Structures are given as C-alpha cells and as structure tokens.
C-alpha cells in the first residue's frame, strides 16, 4: 500500500514539475505522515548534515571544480586536431576523432554534458566544412559524450557509490575497461557505416608523420592529469576524494602554464562549480531524506521480500531493472531516475548477492542510454543547441536528424551493456588487480 502511494505521490509531483529534491523530501514526509507511527521532523536536520559533511561525497564538488578549471585552461586545444591527424586514414575519417576526443576528455571530466558540449563545439564546424554527414556527426557526438560518465572520473559513479556505500575508487576502476570498450565499439560502427556509404565521411587531405608526431605534445597535459587522478587511485596512494584534490591542483597548474588564470576565469570557475555542486547536492539531500523515510517504513525490505518470494534469479532481476531504466530513461531526468530508484532496489540486490561494483557499471551504462534516448535526453538537446548556433538565425536544423543519427549508436550501447552483463569480468578485473 505504501509502495503504491509512493509511486503515486512521486509521479504526480515529478509530473507537475516540482523541484526534484522537494518532491522526494516532501513526498517522503507525506508518506511517513500517513503510514508512520511517529513524527520524524528531526531527520530534516541531521540527514542534510550527514549528507553535506560526508568525506566520500567531497569528491563530487572537487571533480566538478576540476572540470570547470579544465574547461577554461586551454587543455583541449590541439587535442582534437592531433587525434584527427592520427585517425583520419581510417574509414570514417574525422568521425573517429569525435569518439577518441570524447574518450580522452572523459578521462579528465566527470560529466557527459560537458564532454558532448566541449568536443561538439570544436568538431562540428570542422566536420561541416568538410561536408560530413550531419546526422552521423551529431549521433557520434551525442553518444561519445556519454563516455564522460563511464570513463572515470565520473559524477554518476560518486552518487551511486555514496547511495550504496561502495568504494568510489573501485567503481572508477571498474568503469575504465567498459568505457574504452564502448569507445572501440563506436569506432567499429562508424567504420562499418562509412564502408557501406562512403559519402557520409568524405576524404580529408592526409597529414605528414612529422605533423602527427609534433601534435602528440598537445596530449601530454591530459595524460599527466590522468596519471595524477587515476594513477593515485589505482596504486592505492589516494582515495577518490584525495585524487580529486590532486586533480584540481593539476588543472590549475595546466591553466597557469597556458597563461589562462585571470580574474574573469576565476570568477566563472567559482560560480559555475558552486552552482553545479549545489544543484546536485540539493537533489542528494532530498534523495537521502526519502531513503531514510523508506527504510524507516521498511518499504525496500518489503519489496525485496516480495521479489525474492517470486523466486527470480539474480539475472532475471537485473534484466528487469535494466528494462525499467530503459523505459524510464526515455522521459525522465537521468540523475533523478538513479537517486529515486537505487534506494528501493538496494536491499533486494544485496539479498540476491549482486556484486554492487559490477551493478554500478551497469547502472551508469543505463544512464548513458537514457541520456541518448529520444525524446528527452540531455546530450540530444546539447547537440541541438550547438547545431542551431552553427546554422545561424532562421535556419534551424530539425532535432529529428539527431534522433535518427544516434539510433545506431544507441543499439551499440545496448550491445556493450549486454556484454558487460554477460561477462562481469570486463568490469571487475581492473579493480580486482588494484592495490
């Protein structure tokens, strides 16, 4: 009964466009008022306190800050053109640089939207000038951008890790191999599309070996940051939060070397990181309030017992959750989808003995799929905005182009997800080998 009430309340509040955090907090309050046996007012004080002082969660604002500094540090300049010089000879040409640049940027950014916007901003004008297929170009950037949250660092892994109390470092290492596997799958797809229909990717004048080798210098700052952040986690020198702090210092160092530090740069960096941090943490406060109230009412345990009584196997339950996320992901905001559902699934997953690190990778891949699935998906809108800017006033390109272009990538993502579900070792061997 309480379960149905919860579903009803949240659907109505989300549907009305109530702020997500408020919907979860006040939705929880309504539930506990109806079904609880005593008031729980004080949780509105100590749940926010515990949430906003959690050391694990400190990683989140620090990785956001690192990304904001990097966006203004000039680190991506030269990256795209270097990668395109190396990958141009492949069938599909510059489209491969979209994927490779996204994968590389993902190694220093935890956000899918920032990855799609940054790489899209550099590559779209370039691709347009060479007459590349608009649809495939946009599709590859929408999909490539989502690598931002699978390849560590990743904001979604931090949120998931805090919700299920799993090590962020382990989750990061688990996302690494599936992330590059997905990037590789995208590149195979692009090559196949280009072989079938060469006109989508016209030939671009080749570069000399000298140009290629000289260009490698522009990748060094990114490799340095990768080593600083992932290297320290892998070798056990630092926790995710500490690695994020190193990352911020490294990002500032790069900005100083590139002479990008200015009052305006600092002003924008401070405001943007504060704004994003408050936006995400406010949702998390609502989510933790709801999680506490649900546990207080014993709802997740009830649902868990009910599912287990149906004698489903671990795999059947995981597949059902995947299906639910794919459906929810078509219309629901991605972060809200994760924070409202994970607390409900958690006891069930634990009872069934599901590996929570592996499941974390599955969840992040499902979020990626949600981000690219029409009609509502963040990266679709980002690419739409970029294309609109490029086309100029009065010549708005239809968003349906992007929907069509992303479809082959959508199915490639599902295929990669199936592989990770069938062979959990793809995700688990790297954290297993770390200190």
């Amino acid at each position, binding site marked *: 009964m309480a379960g149905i009430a919860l579903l009803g309340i949240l659907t109505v509040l989300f549907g009305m466009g109530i702020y997500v*955090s408020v919907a979860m907090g006040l939705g929880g309050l309504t539930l506990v008022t109806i079904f609880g046996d005593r008031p729980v007012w004080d949780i509105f004080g100590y749940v926010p306190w515990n949430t906003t002082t959690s050391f694990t969660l400190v990683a989140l604002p620090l990785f956001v*800050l690192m990304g904001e500094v990097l966006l203004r540090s000039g680190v991506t300049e030269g990256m795209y053109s270097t990668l395109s010089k190396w990958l141009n000879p492949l069938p599909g040409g510059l489209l491969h640089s979209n994927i490779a640049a996204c994968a590389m940027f993902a190694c220093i950014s935890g956000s899918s939207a920032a990855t799609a916007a940054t790489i899209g901003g550099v590559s779209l004008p370039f691709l347009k000038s060479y007459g590349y297929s608009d649809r495939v170009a946009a599709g590859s950037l929408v999909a490539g951008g989502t690598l931002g949250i699978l390849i560590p660092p990743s904001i979604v892994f931090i949120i998931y890790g805090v919700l299920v109390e799993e090590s962020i470092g382990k989750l990061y290492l688990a996302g690494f191999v599936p992330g590059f596997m997905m990037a590789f799958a995208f590149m195979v797809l692009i090559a196949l599309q280009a072989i079938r229909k060469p006109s989508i990717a016209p030939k671009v004048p080749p570069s000399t070996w000298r140009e290629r080798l000289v260009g490698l210098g522009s990748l060094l700052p990114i490799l340095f940051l990768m080593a600083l952040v992932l290297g320290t986690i892998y070798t056990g020198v630092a926790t995710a939060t500490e690695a994020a702090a190193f990352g911020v210092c490294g990002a500032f160092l790069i900005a100083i070397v590139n002479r990008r530090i200015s009052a305006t740069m600092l002003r924008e960096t401070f405001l943007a990181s504060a*704004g994003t941090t408050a936006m995400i943490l406010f949702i998390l406060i609502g989510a933790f309030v709801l999680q506490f109230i649900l546990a207080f009412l014993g709802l997740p345990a009830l649902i868990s017992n009910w599912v287990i009584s149906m004698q489903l196997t671990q795999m059947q339950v995981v597949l059902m959750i995947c299906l639910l996320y794919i459906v929810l992901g078509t219309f629901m905001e991605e972060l809200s989808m994760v924070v409202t559902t994970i607390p409900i699934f958690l006891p069930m997953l634990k009872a069934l003995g599901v590996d929570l690190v592996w499941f974390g990778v599955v969840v992040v891949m499902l979020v990626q799929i949600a981000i690219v699935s029409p009609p509502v998906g963040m990266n679709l809108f980002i690419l739409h905005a970029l294309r609109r800017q490029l086309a100029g006033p009065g010549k708005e390109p239809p968003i349906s182009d992007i929907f069509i272009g992303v479809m082959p990538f959508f199915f490639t993502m599902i295929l990669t997800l199936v592989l990770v579900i069938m062979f959990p070792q793809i995700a688990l061997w790297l954290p297993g080998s770390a200190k």
Partner: protein
Amino acid sequence: MANSNGGALLGVFGLFERLSVAMAYISGALLTLLSFFIAADVLGRGSGKFYSGATDEISGFVMTMAVTWALAYTLTIDKHVRVDLLLGLVSAPVRRLLDWIALLLLTLFAGLLAINSWGLALDSYDIHALSPSILQVPLAIPQGVMAFGFSTLAAQSFLTLLVATFDPSGLARARAAESKAAPVQYDV
C-alpha cells in the same frame, strides 16, 4: 501604489540576489582552497612532515558550507532540477500556476530544512557537542553555518514566490538578467 510596492519588492529581491551571488563566490573559493589543503595534507602525510590529522572532518565542514551557501544562487539562475517534460506541453497560464506551486513547495521544504538545522545546531550547543577529531570543534558552529545556508535558500525562495505573485514580469526580467550573467553550467 501597486507600482511602488512592486518596486520595493523587486528592490529587496535584487538585494537578496546579490547576497546569493556573493555567497556562491565564497563557496567556489572555499572548494578551491579545500582542494589545495587536501592535496597538501596527503603529500605531508606521505612525507611525514605535516599532517592535520583531521582532513576528513575539515573537508566535511567546508563542504557543508560550500553546498548550502550556493543553494540560493542556484535558485536565482533557475538551475535547480525539475522534470520539465509536461511543463513544455501546457498553456502559459497553467505553466505559471505550476511554476508558482513549485516555488511554494520549495519555500516549505527549504523552511523545513532551515528550522530543523537550527534545531540541530541548538541541541549541539546545549549539550556542548564537540567534533570527534583532535580539533574538538563545537559542532554548533558548522551546523549553524549550514542552517544559515538553508535559511538563505528559504528566504530567497519566499521572495521569489512573492515576486512571482505580485510582479511576474519583473521575475522573468530578473531571472533572464541573472542567467545571462552566470557562466555556462553543465548538468551531469
């Protein structure tokens, strides 16, 4: 008469917006300093030269301030997340009504967080609760800082609600100006 009232309201509203922006600057700067501090502490610990012994506690206190003090700013640039799937489909008057209800509930929720956070801080003050590390910080201080952050969100939200009620076009103008001044901000 109504006009001068609206002007005074917008004036107070603008004043609060400036306060929110100032608090967000403090948040961003604090996060930057925190990164330097954590990195120095880890390096110091490794080399055995310097170690605060309370990295996690200090980080937590700084984060609670950085987060709660930026909440009102995020409201002024309209970046708190809502599911807007249906909002795009309804007529303008219905949309205004739903926006108004969203603000009303936000004010209630923020008020709830603020009141109970002040309660938490007062309880800690009454029993002289200290933080568990060697620093022995009276918990009422960081908890009060958090409560202040939630209070500004509640106040900002309440003011926005008032402006939305009495001067909706003024709100639209103020929002547009704030969003234009804000740097581009990326979602997850």
